[in-house]
């Protein structure tokens, strides 16, 4: 029987780290090659190629916050330390992804709309998500006892879950300058052939990189706790 505790998970993850890194390298070479040689957009020219970082980072920042919220609920209900460690490992990576979305989105916005920022529903809700990520990360590191910080950050994560459908459906609920969904929508994706393939390969590339980071942070947190226990035991 597999026991789902931090140490078991840490050992399991450790075995697949190298494989993940090799997969990331393979995907990144294919993805970069495709991005360089793919045709430019008729209206936007070469600037549309920023989409292959912006969109995967946006999907990942939403997905990762969804996972943080879910494991926080599990942690609060079942008092599971593993759930809290998973949330702790994901938090900085989610923050990084949401900052990437804002930066690449601003560059893309400047090139197509002529401005870095507008108080548009999608952009504003994404900024709120970034602040929630930032708050979650700060809360995780602001108490002396990790149980307290885990509890406080989990409450914020559960409340923050409300923002996820707002970010996703903001382009449908309000009139926005930001374009509507072009992949996950009723009637199928409006992106054609090679563009969709390149986008999906870029997404898997960044997803694997995030998994690699998260696994290493998870192992670091687990080992830090083991170190603290050992130190306490030795004293």
């Amino acid at each position, binding site marked *: 029987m597999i026991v789902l505790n931090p140490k078991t998970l840490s050992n399991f993850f450790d075995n697949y780290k190298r494989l993940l890194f090799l997969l990331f390298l393979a995907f990144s070479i294919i993805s970069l090659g495709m991005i360089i040689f793919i045709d*430019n957009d008729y209206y936007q020219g*070469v600037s549309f190629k920023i989409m292959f970082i912006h969109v995967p980072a946006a999907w990942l920042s939403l997905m990762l916050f969804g996972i943080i919220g879910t494991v926080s609920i599990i942690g609060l209900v079942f008092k599971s330390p593993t759930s809290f460690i998973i949330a702790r490992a994901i938090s900085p990576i989610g923050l990084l992804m949401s900052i990437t979305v804002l930066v690449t989105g601003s560059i893309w916005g400047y090139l197509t709309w002529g401005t870095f920022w507008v108080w548009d529903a999608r952009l504003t809700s994404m900024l709120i998500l970034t602040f929630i990520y930032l708050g979650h990360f700060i809360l995780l590191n602001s108490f002396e006892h990790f149980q307290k910080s885990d509890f406080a950050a989990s409450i914020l994560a559960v409340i923050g879950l409300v923002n996820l459908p707002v970010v996703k459906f903001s382009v449908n609920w309000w009139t926005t300058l930001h374009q509507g969904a072009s992949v996950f929508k009723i009637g199928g994706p409006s992106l054609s052939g090679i563009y969709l393939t390149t986008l999906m390969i870029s997404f898997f590339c960044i997803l694997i990189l995030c998994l690699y980071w998260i696994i*290493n942070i998870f192992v670091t947190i687990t080992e830090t706790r083991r170190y603290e226990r050992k130190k306490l035991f030795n004293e």
Partner: protein
Amino acid sequence: MKERSYLMNSLYFVLICYGFFIILAAVTTIIIMNSKKSVLNKISEISKNQPTDKK
């Protein structure tokens, strides 16, 4: 000639925009791996200094 300049423009744009992400990714990886390494070193030091039970 036109095809070559298109390819170079595309390459420059990708290098500049993706350069930001690649630098970000590299810095993040270095920070994560360094902190992991320092924790593992501390643990191995503690294990070395721990008295053994063998008589």
